[in-house]
């Protein structure tokens, strides 16, 4: 419809557009303080992009924990509030967002969130700003790299890979297919999973990488179905898991191939998306995931569930909010916030350079320490002059020299109504037998 000269001009405009789009995709300075106003906990995580469901989980956890803290009198006369900082799940956006967070947040007391999407880029910045961070990344580089201010209460990806293969062993599967997203967080599972599959004497029949920005995965699904696996080990967040798994089901004649997911799939957004695409009953009958053992009864769970459920609705449309009670991001960050707040009180300072050692002391405990299961109990015990060990809904903490604390694994699934059920346990021996 247009002349060639116009077409050439438009091609030039198109080249400019590509450059503009690339620049638009790219996205800062720093400080933390302890003035007289409220203390701020920053949830530094994806709120937009393919992993947009992660940020709200951590924010819900923050709302629950700060509710418990503020109801118990706050921290050293300060109330505590939460702030979301969107990394868009991309290091290029996360770095300026982190710098802007430090520049614009007065009384920044703690950072939570930090997924594998952005951890490698932002943890050095947070550490250089001497701010304590409880991260959700499972990346292996944090298994052996020491950052003074970085703490992790979730399992390393390495252990989760072994846990997935151990579940496959328990279920006597022998032909394994892998389907992981092409994001950093998902790809870290692949190499250890392949190694564990070999060590377990199983056969790897296919390994597909799923582009999280793509919208259909028919060819990838067809390759997996053609390989006739007994089970698919997978982690693919956003809309990817739902699209991919529904295509697997279609191409497999309407029958779902069994799926083993990571703990990231114990998440209401993941459930809503995948159950909507393949059906809740199909998901209930064909899916299990590894997850760290968390409390489902007792005083720690009771305090956690009451505070979290009281904040229901504050993070928008989340699907089944009850799933947050077992979601690793909600449970472990709630514990992290309580640990940091109690450390501030025992150290009598909100300065991270002063309270940081107390995080380990209260988490790991010292001989003769009084076990407390909530922030309020911890404050009361500290006021009574006792030394304390905090054991929250995520169970006992055991920080190693890299500030990692890993617990025991369980096997979870969803029932047809979307409730999380524990259907098995994994022993440390089972995992060790698969380690490289």
């Amino acid at each position, binding site marked *: *419809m*247009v*002349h*060639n000269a*116009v*077409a*050439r001009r*438009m*091609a030039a*405009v*198109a080249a*400019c*557009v*590509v450059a*503009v*789009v690339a620049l*638009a995709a790219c996205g800062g300075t720093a400080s933390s303080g302890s003035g007289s106003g409220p203390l701020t906990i920053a949830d530094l995580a994806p*709120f*937009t*992009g*393919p992993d*947009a469901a992660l*940020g*709200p989980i951590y924010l819900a956890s923050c709302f629950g924990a700060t509710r418990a803290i503020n109801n118990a009198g706050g921290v050293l006369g300060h109330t505590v509030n939460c702030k979301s900082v969107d990394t868009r799940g991309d290091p290029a956006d996360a770095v300026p967002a982190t710098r802007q967070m430090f520049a614009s947040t007065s009384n920044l007391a703690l950072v939570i969130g930090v997924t594998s999407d952005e951890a490698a880029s932002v943890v050095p910045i947070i550490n250089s700003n001497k701010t304590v961070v409880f991260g959700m990344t499972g990346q292996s580089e944090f298994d052996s790299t020491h950052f003074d201010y970085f703490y992790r209460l979730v399992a390393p990806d390495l252990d989760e890979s072994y846990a997935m293969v151990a579940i496959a062993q328990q279920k006597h599967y022998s032909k394994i297919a892998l389907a992981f997203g*092409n994001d950093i967080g998902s790809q870290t599972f692949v190499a250890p999973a392949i190694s564990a599959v070999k060590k377990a004497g199983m056969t790897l029949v296919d390994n*597909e*990488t*799923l*582009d999280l*920005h*793509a*919208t*259909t*995965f*028919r*060819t*990838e699904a*067809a*390759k997996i179905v*053609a390989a006739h696996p007994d089970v698919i080990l997978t982690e693919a967040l*956003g*809309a990817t898991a*739902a*699209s991919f798994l*529904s295509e697997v089901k*279609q*191409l497999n*004649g*309407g029958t779902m191939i069994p799926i083993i997911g990571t703990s990231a799939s114990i998440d*209401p*957004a993941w459930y*809503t*998306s*995948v159950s*909507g*695409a393949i059906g809740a009953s199909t998901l209930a009958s064909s899916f299990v995931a590894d997850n760290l053992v968390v409390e489902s009864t007792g005083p720690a769970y009771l305090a956690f569930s009451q505070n979290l459920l009281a904040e229901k609705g504050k993070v*928008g*449309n*989340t*699907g089944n909010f009850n799933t947050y009670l077992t979601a690793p991001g909600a449970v472990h960050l709630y514990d992290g916030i309580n640990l940091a707040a109690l450390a501030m009180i025992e150290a009598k300072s909100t300065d991270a350079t002063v309270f940081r050692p107390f995080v380990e002391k209260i988490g790991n405990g010292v001989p003769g320490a009084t076990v407390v299961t909530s922030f309020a109990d911890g404050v009361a015990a500290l006021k009574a002059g006792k030394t304390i060990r905090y054991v929250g809904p995520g169970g006992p903490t055991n920080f190693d020299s890299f500030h990692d604390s890993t617990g025991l694994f369980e096997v979870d699934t969803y029932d047809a109504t979307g409730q999380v059920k524990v259907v098995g346990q994994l022993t440390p021996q089972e995992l060790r037998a698969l380690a490289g």
Partner: protein
Amino acid sequence: MNLLFASLGFGMVTAAVLAIASVGFTMQFAVTDVLNLAYGAVMIVCAYVAYAVNQAGISIWFGVAVAAVLGALISVALNRGVYTPFQRRGTSPIAIVIVSLGLTLILEFGLQAIVGGNNVSYRVSQGPTLHVGGLQLTVVQLVIIGLSVVAMLAVHTLLAFTKLGKAMRATAADRSLARTCGIRTDRVVTVTWLISGALCGVGGAVFALDAGSFGATSTDLFLVLILAAVFLGGPGQSYGAMLGALVIGIGTEVSAAYVTPEYKDVVAFVLLLIMLAVRPTGLLGSRA
């Protein structure tokens, strides 16, 4: 060999969805001189409206029709409320592209603020998977291909055999000359926004139907595939966009079968770069 035929079939489905969206995009671009990068955002808004209709217990195919109407209305509103005022002030084409990028963010993040970060799916049975000569397609996928063929035939009929189509082609070629010849170009431009917007709405709904699961930002990469199809075929060329969509759709799926799937969208851009190097006007550019 089976995988080749299967991926060819999957490529046809991708091409069908891409063709509906690309033809609307390129028609809009040719006649209105606006490279509307908010097109993808309008698509996903329409996809969510179809979702709302579907959630109300109504057939998704009615939802597709509602999406078409809404796409047309939003597009006309964007033109009247945003693009035309900028064009009247003599804003440069590249500045209007930036404006459209801003609109994309406003629409997508506005939508996300309403619907949340969860991904959703239409309530529709895909039907049985039919195996024909190595192709593996569901009934819904066949309907999408059929819908695309009908849309392409309708666009062809409009452009080749109707007075409006001739007026659109004349306005695209030279708006001043067309006006001198008595064509009411303002009206032609408005009708073009309506038609291309309807294709945008249908494109959004079938995109979501084909993807199986979608969120507020799901069309971000798809818009880039639309641009690739449009510029591969020749900017402003409706038939070129159809051809470009076919090449991109089949190219991406076949490459996913034989190269790593991670790079399947990269293949689309390699094809585009080769085309721009060899034939800067696109596949059908010289036939204008």
